[in-house]
Each structure stands twice: as C-alpha cells, then as structure tokens.
C-alpha cells in the first residue's frame, strides 16, 4: 500500500477545459457580459462576476428516452395509506412521480437545465467585454524610444554560465573529439581486461597465448594512458547559448480625459461621465501597457488631478471649457511631444459653456489640439431636458468642426444603457459593425 500526498501537485487541471467552455459559448457569454455591464456599474468590474448563459449553448445531446407518452411502472417508498387499486391524482408536471424520467438516476435527468451560470474572473470578464475594441489609429509608431530591452538568442559562445550550457552541442563535440583522438571506449577496456584475466588464469599457457598476453598488456597500458590524457569532456567542447540584449521598440500613447464638473452638471450626469471614463480607463489599461492617462477636470478653472480625485472628489462651479482645452494643450506640449507620442483625448460635458468662451474654445481645439491628436471623442451627457433645449452650444460648435475633421467624434449619451453602445461605436475595429 502506498500513501501519496498529492496536495502540493499543481492545481487547476481544468483551467484549459474551462477556457474552452468560454470559447465554445463565446457569443452567449459575451452577450451576457455586455448586459451585465449595461445594468451594473463599471466600477464593479474590479471583481469577479458571474454571468449566465443559456444552457443551449453548451448542451450535450444524446439519444435518451423521456417519459412523455405510453405507460410505465415505478416504485416509490414510504407507503403509509395506499392499498392496491387506489387511484391517485396525477401530480402537476414537474412534480414528484410525473417529473422524473423513471429510468437512470436523477443526475442523468438533470442535464436539461435552463441556463448555465458561472463566475468569470476579472481578466476573463474584461477580455470578453473589450474583445474587438481597439484604440483607433495607433499609426505613429515611435521607434526611437526604447524603454525596455529583452534578451534574444544570439548564437553560441565557448564561454558562459553553467546554466546556459548547451548540453547536446557540447556532447556532440565531445563525441567527435573522442572518436577523432581514438579515446578507447569503456567497454573495449573491459573486454581487454577480461581477456587478460582469462589468459592469466589459463595454465599452462601456450606460446601463442603468451604472445597475445604480452600484446594485450601493452595495449592496456596504451589505452590507460589515452584514457588519462584524453578527457571525456574537454573545455574545448563546451558550448554555451549566448543571449544578446536587444532593445524592444515601444509604442507610446497618452490619453487625456477631460470632464466638466461644473454646477450645471447634475449628479446623474457626472455619474454618466464617470461611467464612461471608467469604461475607457479599464479599456486603455488593458490594451496598452505603456499608456499615460492624464485626468483633467474643469469648472471655471481647469486642473490636472489624479485618478482618484477625478472619479471620486466632488467639485462645482461655473463653466469655462477653454480652460480645460488650454491646460490639455499645455500639458501635451510640455510632456508629450507629438513626435514621440500617440495622443488621444476624450471630453465629457453637458454641453454648457459660457457663450463668450465658445470662440476661444473652438480656436484652441482646431488650432492647438486637433492637429496634434490622433483622435478626439466628445461625449455629451444630456439631462432629459436637453431634448427640449435642442442642441447645446458646444455640441453645435464641435459638430460643425467634426464635419471636416474626421478624427473628431461627437456622441450623445442620455442614459446609462447608452454608454456601452456609444463606447463600442467609438472604438469598434470596424465602425460599420455597430452593436448599438
């Protein structure tokens, strides 16, 4: 009898199988994931999420009977009052007796579940959620900035650390050398020794045998000398794998997030804006490793804030859009030169701006920002009242510009459920395949 402690064996034998389930039910899972996002808050994506997919996507059919017609007998236990010939009311479908299949065991029959629910890890969830979205036009590949390096195979060398020893090459050379220098093989040596022993044990020894014995002894000394001189593995055999450090080109991008936090933005609107940015944030964080994100919020005055302040710190005041655009242009010029950065910007606002500020804002946008950025998305969050007011100042102005500047996109969001379709619309790899 053996006792084997398997507890330290690698766990997760079924990770690959589990992945294949998700792959198999990909469409269903994705739909479910997107519904979950539409109804919940993106902030929750920090956790594992459970999704439900219709069982049909993972159904395993087989030939099996169900009792739907005809007659059958079955045995029940726990009779308290029945006698032969009693007639019982047929229980409603799905109840005991009528519900089971009467054959096989219940777990076989339990296959026909309506939906299949499972928990996705954060990673899996986001992967499915953001699948097929791409940051548009990552064209300016900046090769001059080499922040990282990676070791690459670069042939062989005859010196190196033992861990890099290329054993098969080394031994190949060792064999070649041993054959070339005629180093005796161990079994030849044994043969000679055995023959000598046999001859030594033999008495009387014929002259012929004596000759042979002498010869063999001589041969043995030669062999021993050779063995001693010619090493099994010589330093000249050694070959090491060589690695050279190769710089890895990095594509760098920066994303500016601009948000209006003025008094005209109601809590609900701010919440919509935050939802949008949170989505954007998750998306960017996953897609681009070397990506800077600059958070700019503005009321009358713009300020650069950190992520936490941006999302959670309340603030209020009047509205001067130009201040934010100015600050953004400023930061971009100082820290993110156009030559070495891909620049993206997203602005969320309720569309209000001081009328006197409009000209200035548009000036900065067309003059300083649009020529330098790859993509500028303007999202307008509107209260339901906005419908009555019609187009806002900012919307009108931006919309006009967008007609002749293709990389300025303007969209409107009124409800939480709009956010995701709009987001997908902005970042779909194939814009025509909208999923609104």
């Amino acid at each position, binding site marked *: 009898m053996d006792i084997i402690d398997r507890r330290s064996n690698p766990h997760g034998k079924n990770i690959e199988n589990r992945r294949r389930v998700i792959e198999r039910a990909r469409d269903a899972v994705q739909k479910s994931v997107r519904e979950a996002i539409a109804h919940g808050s993106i902030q929750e994506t920090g956790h594992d999420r459970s999704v439900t997919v219709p069982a049909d996507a993972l159904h395993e059919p087989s*030939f099996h009977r*169900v009792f739907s017609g005809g007659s059958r007998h079955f045995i029940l236990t726990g009779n308290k009052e029945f006698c032969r010939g009693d007639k019982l009311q047929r229980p409603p479908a799905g109840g005991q*007796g009528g519900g089971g299949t009467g054959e096989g065991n219940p777990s076989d029959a339990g296959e026909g579940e309506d939906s299949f629910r499972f928990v996705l890890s954060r990673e899996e969830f986001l992967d499915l959620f953001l699948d097929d979205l791409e940051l548009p036009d990552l064209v300016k590949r900046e090769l001059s900035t080499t922040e990282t390096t990676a070791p690459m195979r670069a042939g062989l060398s005859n010196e190196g650390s033992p861990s890099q020893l290329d054993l098969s090459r080394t031994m190949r050379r060792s064999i070649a050398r041993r054959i070339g220098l005629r180093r005796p093989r161990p079994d030849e040596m044994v043969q000679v020794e055995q023959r000598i022993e046999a001859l030594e044990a033999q008495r009387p020894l014929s002259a012929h045998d004596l000759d042979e014995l002498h010869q063999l002894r001589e041969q043995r000394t030669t062999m021993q000398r050779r063995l001693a001189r010619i090493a099994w593995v010589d330093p000249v055999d050694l070959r090491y794998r060589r690695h050279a450090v190769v710089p890895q080109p990095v594509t760098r991008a920066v994303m500016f997030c601009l948000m209006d936090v003025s008094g005209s933005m109601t809590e609900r609107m701010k919440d919509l804006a935050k939802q949008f940015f949170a989505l954007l944030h998750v998306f960017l964080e996953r897609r681009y490793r070397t990506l800077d994100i600059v958070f700019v919020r503005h009321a009358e005055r713009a300020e650069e804030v950190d992520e936490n302040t941006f999302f959670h710190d309340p603030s209020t005041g009047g509205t001067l859009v130009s201040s934010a655009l100015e600050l953004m242009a400023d930061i971009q010029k100082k820290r993110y030169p156009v030559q070495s950065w891909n620049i993206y910007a997203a602005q969320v606002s309720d569309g209000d701006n001081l009328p006197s500020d409009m000209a200035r804002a548009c000036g900065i946008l067309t003059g300083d920002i649009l020529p330098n950025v790859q993509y500028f998305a303007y999202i307008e969050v509107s209260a339901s009242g906005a419908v009555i007011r019609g187009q806002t100042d900012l919307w009108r102005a931006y919309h006009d510009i967008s007609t002749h500047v293709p990389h300025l996109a303007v969209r409107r969001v009124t409800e939480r459920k709009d956010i995701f379709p709009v987001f997908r619309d902005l970042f779909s790899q194939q814009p025509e395949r909208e999923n609104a």
Partner: protein
Amino acid sequence: MMDLRPASPVTGTCSGLLYQGNDWNFEILRDCYDAVADIAERELGLTTYPNRLEIITSEQMLDVYTAHGMPLGYRHWSLGKRFIAHENAYRRGMMGLAYEVVINSDPCISYLMEENSATMQTLVIAHAAFGHNHFFHNNRLFREWTNASEILDYLEFARGYIHQCEERHGIAAVERILDAAHALQGQGVHRHSGSRRLDLRAEQQRAQARRLHEEATFNDLWRTVPVDEEQQPDTTLNDPMRRRLGLPEENLLYFLEKHAPLLAPWEREVIRIVRMIAQYFYPQPQLKMMNEGCATWVHDYIMRRLHENGRIDDASYLEAIHSTSNVITQPDFDAGGGPSFNPYALGFAMMGDIARICTSPTAEDRAWFPEIAGNDRPIETLKHAWAEFRDESFILQYLSPAVMRRFRMFRIHDDTAAPYLLVDAIHDDAGYRDIRRTVAQNHDPANMNAEIEITGANMHTDRMLTLEHRTTRGHQFHADDARRTLQYMADLWGYGVQLLERDADDGTVLATYEATGRGGVRRG
C-alpha cells in the same frame, strides 16, 4: 459501552486506540490502514488490487469529479462544463464533496480529502480501498469488461494522441469529432460480445501499427482503378454490402469508425478512443447499487469490529455511524424521494438483509430463499453475490419481502392514457413479486440505455443510413435531443441518416427523424 482503559498515545501497536480526536497524520493513516486491512483480510477474506491512497485538497477533488475519478483525461470543453457545474454547486453550498473517490484500476487509487477527520479517513479506507476495491476485483462484469491494469496507460495514450491531433489539425477539427462521438457514446459499446475483454495496451500498439501501415502502403494509384459500375443493388438480407458492413450493428461508434466513408484515419482513431473509454465505463451504472451496497456494508462491518476491538473510541464510532446513516437515507416519496432509489440505501439494506437471512432466518425467508436461509455463512454468501451478479439480477435474486416492507414500497402504474395514477402493488403477499420485478427492471441496463441498431445502409445510391430504435410501451426519445444527436451521426457519416422509432411489439413506426450530411434535421 465505555472504554475505561487509559488513553494510549498514538502508536502503531497492534492494540489500543489508533487515534483520538479528529487530527490525523500519515503515521495514523498507515496504522488505520493496517488495522482495517487486518479485519478485511482475516475476517472478511476480501481480495483486492494493491491499494494506493492519495491525499488531495477539496479543489483537487473537484478536478477528480470532473474526470469521473480518472487521474488524466484529454481536453474537451464538456469537461470544463462539468467542472464549472460542480464548482458552482460546491461554492454555493448545494453540494458537499464526497469524502473519497475510488477508481477501478490496478493499483486501485482512492482519493481521500485532506479535510476528513481521522475517523472519516478510516471509514473511507474501509469503504473504498477494501469495499469497492474488492468489488472491482471480483465482480464478473468488471473482470470481463474492464482491464484495470491498463486503463491508466490507455488514458495517457488517449490524452497524448488527442493533443497531437489538436496540434496537427486544429482544436476545432478535433472538437467536431469529439462532440459527435460524445453524443453517441451511449451507443458506442458492445453489449453482447460475451467475455471479450478489452486489451487496452495491445489496443494502443495496434493503433500505432495501423497508422504506420497505412502510411507505408499508401498508393495513390488505387484511386484510379476503375470500379465495376454494373453492380446491381441488392436489398435482401444477403446483400454482400450489408454483410461487409456487419449490419445490423448496434455499436454506432464502431460502425462509424470502421465504415464512415469520409473520415480521415486520425478521426477514426479519435472515435475509437471515445468508444474505448465508454466501454470501460459501461459496467459502472449497471453495478452502482451493488457496488455501493458492498462498500457501505464492508465499512460498516469494519468500523463496528474496530470499535469492538477497542481500536477506535466511542466518539469515533458514533461519528462513523452518523456518517453511514447519512448516506443510506432513502427519503419517502412524500419527502422528495423520486422513483429511483438511493443506491447506498437499497444496497446497504439488501446486504444487511442477506447476512440476516443467512444467520437468523424467519419462516418467510426460508420459503423465499431456501438456498441461503440459515446457512450461517453470511460472508461467503455475500461474496458470491458480489462476484456473480449485477444490480438487476441481484435484485431479482435477493430482494426480500423484509426489505420491501422496510422501505414500504409500492408500485405505481402510470399510463398517460388514464387520468390518474394507479397503485397496482403494495408490500403485501400479492405484491412482493410485482414490486421486485419492477425494481429489477428499473435497474436493467436495457432500460437505462436506449438501444439503437443500424439496420440499413444504402451504399449503392445516396448512402442513406437507416437506424432503428425499438421501443415498447410507447416510450420515445427526447425529440430535440434525438434530432441533434442524429445530426452528429450524420456529420460523422458524411451522408444522410434516418432514424425510425418502432414499436417492438407490432412494428408500427412511432416517429421518424432525418438528418443530412450538413443540412438541417426534420421530424416526419
């Protein structure tokens, strides 16, 4: 009974307590194993495969569940699905994990959960490593159908082969075959080929040789040899084509593997793997009740004897009794008990009852079981039953009125033509035999797996394959599943397939399904 002796330290001596409290370590485990083995071998005379105990965590137990206890398996999404289902049920507290899982292999591997208390470890050693193991080792069906010493090697081969196919042909291509073969695996076993035992190792070598031979003898010229176009289709039973295809054939997977015209050699091999594994598992459901009954009876006996010998204390024994009575609960019909029995409950009750009949029979027992009543050799009698029967025949042979009364069994006749359910037998003299027959029937493999035969293959024209499901008493297939499964069948066959459901008594066709190579399926 009180144990008045001072608590002895944990040692491996031949007497005294094996352990105290809940904790166990490997030394205790070994001592417990020895103590259990002593009773199992000397008192019960059980013969087993060599044992291997593996300690695993609950997480690993979920993996074991997924693979039906097999330590390795090929990759497929259906396993992932099963894993997720188990995981969910476990996480939401809807399912407790088994204390052990044991597999029919040589050596016989029992998985023990690390969370088990010392008592539970002892109990599951008795249950799995001796009860189940003896059953695997001795039962006729297991001996004939499965080759315990080679299953592990074969699984290793299967896993490697399928992995290789995935690398060569892509996961999707392999999945296409596996999905279809899995759907048909219930119809992928030889049921009646007598005592032909699977030789899995030879199987593996044959697979390799076959592939090499095909590669070596491939000659494209054969393709160009003109065929005799003049052949007249012959639809009689003596049709040489029919004979060559071995029709009628009930093993659908075997037929596809051998005769499907469009499959690549590796695809046939994948089908063969699914078929071999299905064949290995084929006896298990037919023996479930006896197997569990045997193991439960053995552990109950051994735990009682350990307690009587003073090897475990009262607390441990009570824990063991508690655990046993948990698994042998059979809820009454009005408390959620369905039409199928808890195999532990019925099995354990019947084993105990046989032992009782052997040692202290009543007049009724003597009338019902003249061969064994009062023979005073309960263990030999049980061992004979364990070796020679399967659930169905065991019930027909040994289900006694005493057990039927104990469970208060009654039989219901459910005819969908009638507006009510009829109680047509209860546990009285008039009903015992009826009840016994029905319990046995409900454990009959013929009732569990639908039997389908390939009855015709129209090889001269459109290669339409005809399947027939012979059924009685109006029991029909789940229509949607049948349609989908038939589609899988057609995918593998490559041409049209039709399925007739025919009443075995009067030959009327109850339903017709049809599937084309890649098209849709319609029900006629």
